[in-house]
């Protein structure tokens, strides 16, 4: 990561005090509640969060598709619309299919034709592995092929910033693997990449940095390894009477310990170490259960109590 105040930072992406509220019949929805974020040029960052965290709204504002209610967005020192017009930004939006009656090559060429300094169409097709199906009509592609064409459309302008909003949602395992290989290949050309995902593993494998969002705010931001350690916790439950939770908290790999009657609940950063130590010291422990926290639970932990800003649901 570029250090604070380096000239590189000015060349990156900067969000300041960003807010966005939508109105709905149930009252206002505070989709984004104040985001400050800098992404340095050349960085690959993952925007991680459950549904409704505000990821897509944030991305829409970075692309100039939505107007912030408050705050500013700067993309390489320019407002989003200007950066887009200069061909600096390519994006794969969350939803979307392709228009019909064109071949893959024609569609990519059509998009290339809109930009001042696009990539060679053949190169884009080559990079995304679409050479073989370049002549096929867009309405005859599989879900995974469609996503790859959308990826080609996003990169054919040869952008400095690539934004991907949950790009692998419709893909099978193999498709995902291929997709991320292509993405990393493109990112390695010195590109700045921001992708949104639900999956911690995707962030871990493909980004240098993870930015966690929940309830329209950033709740954690750091190197993926660090974030993984924070949200990658497991919970160990066991029936173990008459042992002080404070003693259990001393066990290796335990972050916190709690007791509910005869049951103890240990939050573990390394549940493997914990279980070994537990059984050695307290062989009487039974009904042992270890569960991954899951992102949703991890987010809840990070965000603390249910959000106080959330309008209370009242039935009239």
């Amino acid at each position, binding site marked *: 990561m570029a250090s604070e105040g380096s000239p590189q930072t000015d060349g990156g992406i900067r969000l300041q005090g960003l807010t966005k509220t939508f109105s709905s019949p149930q009252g206002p929805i505070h989709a984004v509640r104040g985001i400050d974020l800098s992404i340095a040029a050349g960085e690959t960052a993952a925007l991680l969060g459950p549904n409704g965290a505000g990821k897509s709204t944030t991305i*829409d504002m970075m*692309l*100039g*598709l*939505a107007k912030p209610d408050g705050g500013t967005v700067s993309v390489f020192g320019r407002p989003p619309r200007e950066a*887009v*017009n*200069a*061909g600096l*930004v390519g*994006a794969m*939006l969350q*939803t*979307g*299919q*392709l*228009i*019909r*009656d*064109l071949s893959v090559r*024609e*569609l990519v*060429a*059509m*998009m290339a*034709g*809109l*930009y*001042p300094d696009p990539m060679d169409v053949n190169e884009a097709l080559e990079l995304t592995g679409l050479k073989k199906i370049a002549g096929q009509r867009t309405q005859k592609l599989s879900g995974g092929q469609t996503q790859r064409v959308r990826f080609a*459309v996003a990169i054919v*302008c040869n952008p400095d910033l690539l934004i991907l909003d949950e790009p692998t949602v419709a893909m099978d395992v193999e498709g995902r693997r291929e997709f991320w290989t292509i993405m990393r290949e493109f990112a390695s050309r010195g590109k700045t990449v921001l992708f949104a995902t639900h999956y911690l593993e995707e962030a871990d494998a493909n980004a240098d940095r993870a930015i966690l969002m929940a309830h329209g705010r950033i709740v954690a931001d750091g190197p993926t390894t660090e974030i993984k350690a924070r949200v990658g916790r497991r919970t160990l439950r066991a029936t173990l009477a008459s042992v002080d939770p404070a003693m259990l908290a001393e066990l290796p790999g335990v972050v916190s310990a709690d007791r509910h009657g005869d049951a103890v609940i240990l939050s573990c950063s390394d549940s493997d170490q914990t279980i070994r130590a537990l059984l050695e010291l307290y062989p009487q422990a039974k009904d042992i259960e270890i569960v991954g926290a899951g992102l949703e639970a991890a987010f809840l932990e990070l965000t603390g109590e249910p959000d106080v800003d959330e309008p209370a649901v009242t039935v009239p």
Partner: protein
Amino acid sequence: MSGLVYTRYEMLRTFRNRRFWFFSLGFPLIFFWLIASPQHNKIIKGTGLTYAAYYMVSLASFGTMMSMISTGARIAGERQVGWTRQLRISPLSVRAYFRAKVLTGYTMAVLSLILLYISGALLGVHLPAKHWLAMTGLIVVGLLPFAALGVLLGHLVNTDAVGPMMGGLVSILAFLSGTWFPITSGFLHSFGQFLPSWWLVQARNVALNGQGWDARGWITVAAWTAILAAGAAWAYRRDTGKV
């Protein structure tokens, strides 16, 4: 200029669309030959025009109207698959986007027109060159309201509804504007003159006496163009504002 490449592919897509071939080209041509060929040189009572001349312009109006408002089907289709959003994060300006759509509509309309002119000429419609040109000019101007209507429908109606809506609308307008039989008096005659399609069909009078529209025709077409263009701008803003 970026809009050019976009327009080229937009036309290519439209050419590959079977519905376009049927409604804008096939349907008017088939009906022209069915109705006009048996008695092409006979004069239709009350009009002074031969069957061939009358139905050549009538069906050209139908085909060109269809070509223009089918822009709506293309826009609705692009909206449905989220393509309009993809284009909004490209440098293509809104102006260039609509220019491409309308230009494509006009290209298709001119193609439909040429095919009907050729058919008409084959069935004995002979006009001085300046009359062919004057007639074409009136039709091109008369299609302006329909260019705007296409954009309006495309942003207002979803894909499922846009096809039947276009078909229904063009059929009703064609009927009320004297496409299928002459409307020379009565309520339909007074009412029809308020429709933009009426004046499109009236372009046929050039074939009779070289006369174009009177002031009323120009005002009607201009008013509809203004109203529908304002409507199209409203529908576009409403559509993209909600994101």
